[in-house]
């Protein structure tokens, strides 16, 4: 509206008139002019306010006055007043109006409302004293959103305001219910900070899901898992398994695999136990069956058998002459129990890692050669690096080839060398025991092995069976009880903690407790951590017991172990842990405060909770102990791993701190939260730290960098290559500090972890925290004090694979497309053998002796190349002067070799790549994965990686399986790894044929 007046003075004066009609006239005109004349009107606001409060006025007029006042206050920036008057304006406040005023006030109203609601919810006060007018506005807004089809906004507001009724309405009314639901699940994970409330939302979602005509069981089960309701999952699984349709069974398997991926051991066991056993013939009495089940249970946990519950024996016996549907069910039940126990996925992962192992032994060799013999730190670092590089691949070639060198490890180095085997054989559930047998403590005191290797072996068993320790628990307990050597106790405690991760087993706890009460420093430290591992996320009363003991004991090591253990017990409990955290962070003892930092990190892990971040930042700058400050910064990494982009920004200032401990913490925080992302900002932040003046900062930065760059190829970020060269330089440099050298060695291990087929992942694909992984990294970060804890990093490795399975849970031949240049995601090129560099040196020697002959030969070679003559003729011509000729042919060969790649480069690289099941699919590649339409198999769930069940469209044709055999014998591993390297070796093979010409050396 073009303004015709220069002042609102006249209208304002009219407000003071006595006649109500005049006032109304003035108000309605002011309402139109307020956007321009608010400065003038603002002086008269008291008049308008009094009009609003004037009881004699009619409703409409008062609302109008309120609206004008609200607008004026809005322009004055007094949003609170503005809102309260807007509420007074009632229906005159039009939520659909498209103006800044309305937008701002709506946002304010919703904020206010959400605030009030959440406060009311916190104080458990049902009688909420929320202004009904405010509620009305928010509701109007919600209804409008729903009507306009802006369901996501409506859901966001509803969740924020704790209006689950509206949330449900928004979801059910939306046109794409499935899409909206999955959006809602995402939102509830990333934005709902309160655990309790998140559960409420999820419960609602499950309800909505179940009402749908075609329930999405995958999502329902995910929700149920968050809610920790095994009954629901079990009943869904059973329903699917009992279905006639094969596809339903496939779906059930898929659900099971997805659940397993979240590593929630206790929950999985619960689900498994709730699946009903197949109905037998009615004639069969009830009693024997249960006893049979019991015996099966016993059998599985029998000490001499490390296998998981199979369940097959039970079902086989019972269903011999049952009706066919029961037989079918029993068969499926067996499979699903296998999956739920984690056995199937572990076995398949093992097969995948074994068959796709691409680790580069040459790197290790280089490290081994450059490390000084007597430097035990670097020596064991090399052993750690080897273990990490081959984690889960069962390839221990390097160790076998260097037994002599290995034997230099003594005492604790021996402990970790033995434990390293556990990392290499991680997941080798069936044969773990027998593999470690030579090192394990023999019954009685007669065992000749050193306590260090025995302790290490027990630790190794724990690593092999981490989070799947049902079979091995008993054995470890026995070993723990039968020894009083503290080194063995240490190993056994760690092993037991790993194997029984999060099971909260009272008996084991008591065993470990008795070790703790012996008050031996070494064993006590292990016991402390182990108790925490056992009680992960239970928030049990045990924590206070541990805290009391931490106060009593004199040993720093024990206090530290306990501090970490206590922190582990509150894993993921968020607000529930606040009292304990408060207690620990206020303690006099810096070690307990240090534990408090871990408690904060773990309780709020992956929540990006602002309160936790604030607290950590506060400790990072204010605590008197360097250890606490370092840990506080490091803990930020855990709190923020769900939003890795945030971390570099938050710690960037800290990374420039004057305090090296804080810098170290900042490096690791970035490493932890951005692990495997290859995030550019993270790399930029770490880069300067890798050349810090303080050695341990360099160490931390190198390790963190490796964690960030896991599986990032040089093609996608050139800094990866730079970093690899930097590592090599540091390792080869004689004058480098031991600390950073160790960091570099470990970094090279992590960079190529698990045969270059794993990444560090703290979140599952459904955004659920992976308990094992988080706990693993937390304990790993403790390696500052205790190197053997480095092995805990293996818990956080997850294979980056697409493994498609058919109905029989076998891996059929199946091809799919990666819609990206192959070089983007390929394995790094194997390093060249040093001998090739000496071969390159050769020409200089040749030049000095026979330049002429060479020139001639070159001409000849050109001629020959044109004529395309066979190499035989060439060799005959060079027969005259063998020595020179040989060098010449070699050179020619090299030239040809060079030609081949250039030719390849000249033709454009294909823009896609066909992958064959099972295939390596790195995280960044996941979005490029496409399934071929005419393929024989169709995935049940469109997931680009992980375990995916495939529906067979042509079930009559015979299937071709691509992964069949397990890596049964370790003897074959050497050959296999050689085969894996064959591609790389082919280049060297050419060089090998002619012997390096010795005579030429004298010229130099």
């Amino acid at each position, binding site marked *: 509206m073009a303004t015709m007046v220069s002042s*609102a*003075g006249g209208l304002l004066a*009219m407000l*003071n008139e006595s*006649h109500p*009609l005049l006032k109304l*006239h003035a108000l309605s005109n002011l309402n139109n002019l307020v956007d321009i004349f608010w400065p003038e009107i603002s002086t008269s606001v008291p008049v308008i306010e009094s009009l609003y409060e004037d009881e004699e006025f009619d409703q409409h007029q008062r609302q109008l006055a309120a609206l004008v006042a609200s607008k004026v206050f809005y322009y004055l920036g007094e949003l609170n007043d503005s809102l309260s008057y807007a509420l007074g304006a009632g229906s005159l406040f039009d939520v659909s109006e498209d103006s800044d005023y309305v937008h701002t006030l709506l946002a304010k109203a919703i904020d206010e409302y959400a605030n009030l609601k959440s406060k009311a919810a916190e104080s458990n006060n049902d009688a909420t004293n929320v202004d009904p007018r405010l509620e009305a506005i928010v509701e109007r807004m919600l209804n409008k959103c729903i009507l306009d089809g802006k369901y996501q906004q409506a859901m966001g507001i509803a969740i924020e305001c704790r209006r689950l009724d509206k949330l449900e309405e928004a979801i059910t009314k939306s046109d794409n219910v499935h899409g909206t639901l999955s959006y809602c699940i995402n939102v509830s994970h990333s934005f709902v900070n309160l655990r309790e409330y998140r559960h409420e939302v999820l419960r609602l979602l499950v309800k909505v899901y179940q009402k749908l005509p075609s329930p999405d069981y995958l999502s329902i089960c995910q929700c149920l898992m968050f809610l920790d309701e095994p009954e629901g999952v079990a009943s869904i699984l059973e329903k699917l398994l009992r279905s006639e349709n094969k596809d339903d069974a496939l779906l059930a398997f898929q659900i099971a695999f997805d659940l397993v991926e979240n590593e929630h051991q206790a929950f999985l066991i619960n689900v498994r136990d709730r699946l009903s056993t197949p109905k037998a013939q009615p004639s069969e009495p009830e009693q024997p069956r249960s006893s049979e089940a019991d015996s099966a249970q016993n059998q599985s946990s029998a000490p001499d058998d490390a296998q998981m519950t199979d369940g097959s024996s039970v079902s086989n016996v019972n269903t011999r002459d049952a009706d066919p549907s029961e037989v079918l069910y029993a068969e499926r039940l067996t499979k699903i129990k296998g999956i739920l126990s984690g056995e199937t996925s572990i076995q398949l992962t093992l097969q995948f890692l074994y068959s796709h192992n691409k680790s580069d032994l040459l790197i290790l060799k280089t490290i081994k050669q450059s490390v000084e013999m007597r430097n035990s730190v670097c020596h064991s670092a090399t052993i750690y690096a080897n273990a990490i590089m081959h984690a889960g691949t069962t390839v221990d070639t390097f160790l076998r080839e260097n037994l002599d060198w290995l034997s230099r490890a003594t005492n604790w180095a021996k402990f970790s060398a033995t434990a390293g085997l556990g990392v290499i054989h991680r997941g080798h559930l069936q044969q773990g025991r027998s593999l470690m047998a030579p090192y394990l403590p023999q019954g009685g005191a007669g065992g000749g092995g050193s306590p260090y290797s025995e302790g290490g072996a027990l630790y190794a068993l724990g690593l092999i069976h981490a989070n799947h320790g049902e079979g091995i628990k008993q054995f470890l307990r026995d070993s723990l009880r039968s020894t009083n050597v503290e080194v063995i106790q240490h190993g056994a405690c760690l092993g037991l903690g790993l194997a029984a991760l999060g099971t909260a087993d009272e008996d084991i706890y008591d065993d470990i407790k008795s070790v703790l009460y012996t008050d031996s420093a070494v064993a006590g430290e292990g016991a402390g951590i182990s108790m925490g591992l056992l009680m992960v996320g239970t928030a049990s009363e045990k924590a206070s017991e541990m805290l009391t003991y931490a106060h009593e004991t004199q040993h720093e090591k024990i206090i530290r172990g306990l501090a970490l253990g206590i922190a582990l017990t509150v894993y993921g409990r968020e607000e529930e842990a606040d009292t304990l955290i408060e207690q620990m962070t206020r303690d006099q003892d810096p070690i307990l405060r240090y534990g408090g930092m871990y408690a904060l990190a773990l309780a709020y892990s992956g929540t990006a909770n602002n309160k936790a971040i604030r607290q950590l930042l506060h400790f990072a*700058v204010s605590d008197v102990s360097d250890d606490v400050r370092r840990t506080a910064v490091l803990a930020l990494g855990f709190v923020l791993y769900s939003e890795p982009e945030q971390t570099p920004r938050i710690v960037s200032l800290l990374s420039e701190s004057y305090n090296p401990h804080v810098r170290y913490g900042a490096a690791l925080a970035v490493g932890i939260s951005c692990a495997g992302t290859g995030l550019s900002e993270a790399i930029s932040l770490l880069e300067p730290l890798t050349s810090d003046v303080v050695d341990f900062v360099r160490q931390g930065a190198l390790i963190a960098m490796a964690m960030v760059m896991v599986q990032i190829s040089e093609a996608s970020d050139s800094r990866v290559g730079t970093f690899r060269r930097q590592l090599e330089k540091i390792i080869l440099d004689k004058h480098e500090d031991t600390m950073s050298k160790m960091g570099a060695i470990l970094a090279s291990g992590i960079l190529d972890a698990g045969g270059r087929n794993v990444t560090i992942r703290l979140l599952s694909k459904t955004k659920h925290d992976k308990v094992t992984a988080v706990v693993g990294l937390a304990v790993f970060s403790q390696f500052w004090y205790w190197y053997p804890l480095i092995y805990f990093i293996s818990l956080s490795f997850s294979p980056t694979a697409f493994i498609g399975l058919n109905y029989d849970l076998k891996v059929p031949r199946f091809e799919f497309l990666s819609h990206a240049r192959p070089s983007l995601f390929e394995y790094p090129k194997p390093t060249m053998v040093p001998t090739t560099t000496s071969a390159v040196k050769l020409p200089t020697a040749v030049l000095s002796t026979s330049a002429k002959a060479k020139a001639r030969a070159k001409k000849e070679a050109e001629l020959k190349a044109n004529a395309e003559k066979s190499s035989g003729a060439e060799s005959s011509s060079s027969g005259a002067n063998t020595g020179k000729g040989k060098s010449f042919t070699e050179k020619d060969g090299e030239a040809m070799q060079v030609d081949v790649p250039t030719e390849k480069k000249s033709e454009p690289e294909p823009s896609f790549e066909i992958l064959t099941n099972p295939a390596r699919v790195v995280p960044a590649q996941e979005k490029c994965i496409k399934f071929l339409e005419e393929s024989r198999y169709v995935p049940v769930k469109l997931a680009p990686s992980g375990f995916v069940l495939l529906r067979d469209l042509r079930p009559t044709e015979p299937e071709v399986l691509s992964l069949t055999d397990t890596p049964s014998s370790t003897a074959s591993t050497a050959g296999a790894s050689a085969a894996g390297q064959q591609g790389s070796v082919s280049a060297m093979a050419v060089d090998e044929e002619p012997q390096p010409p010795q005579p030429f050396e004298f010229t130099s």
Partner: protein
Amino acid sequence: MDPKLTEVSQLFERFKAAFIRKDFNTCENFLSQLKVLLTGFRSLPPLFEDTPNAVHELTLARDIYEHAVVLSVKVEDQDAFERDFFQLKPYYTDARNRLPQSPQEYPILGLNLLRLLVQNRIAEFHTELELLSSTALENPCIKHAVELEQSFMEGAYNRVLSARQTVPHETYVYFMDLLAKTVRDEIAGCSEKAYDYLSISNARQMLLFTSDKELLNYIEEEHPEWEIKDGSVYFQKAKESAPCKEIPSLQLINQTLSYARELERIV
């Protein structure tokens, strides 16, 4: 002709008749009705729609408000004056290009200036003054007010009081009377600051009273804090011995300490 307009015109005629009769109560009643009726015209401020009768309506409305202003002076109601004047003002400023100038414009503007002077709102007085054109400043009505203000500022209070005889318009008389009071207040304020006490006769002279009784009444009403004793007026100067501002030492210490602590924490 628009029936509404006719209605307003007729009502206005009756208002004017009453006005001449000096029946001010009736006038106010009519005026109120008129104002309500005026809100029905869309051609009036702030809408200024171009209706066919716009000019006529505007002129009529201006006339009504001008009368309203004069009426308010007659009934000696300053608030009403201000109200009506502000409602009238858009007709002078925003409607300047639509209407021929009103003969009443300058007298009324001058009146307003005088009112501001009386109410001792000097800042607003000057604001208003700045908005006037140079031709307006030449007008005797305006000039009168301007000169008054100058005398007032100079402290030539006798000139102010004598100006009552030279008013350009009969309506000004009311304000001139009020002005005398304003002037007296000024003087009283100054004397209070300037003297500790004054003899009653001097005070009477100073405050331009003709009798001691008037003076005493005045003191009782306006300045009860003054004391009359021994034939003199004692000005109880609010002898607040302006307490020297205390240094907020504790606060400063706290601040400095917290700075020191923060410095320690700098990473």
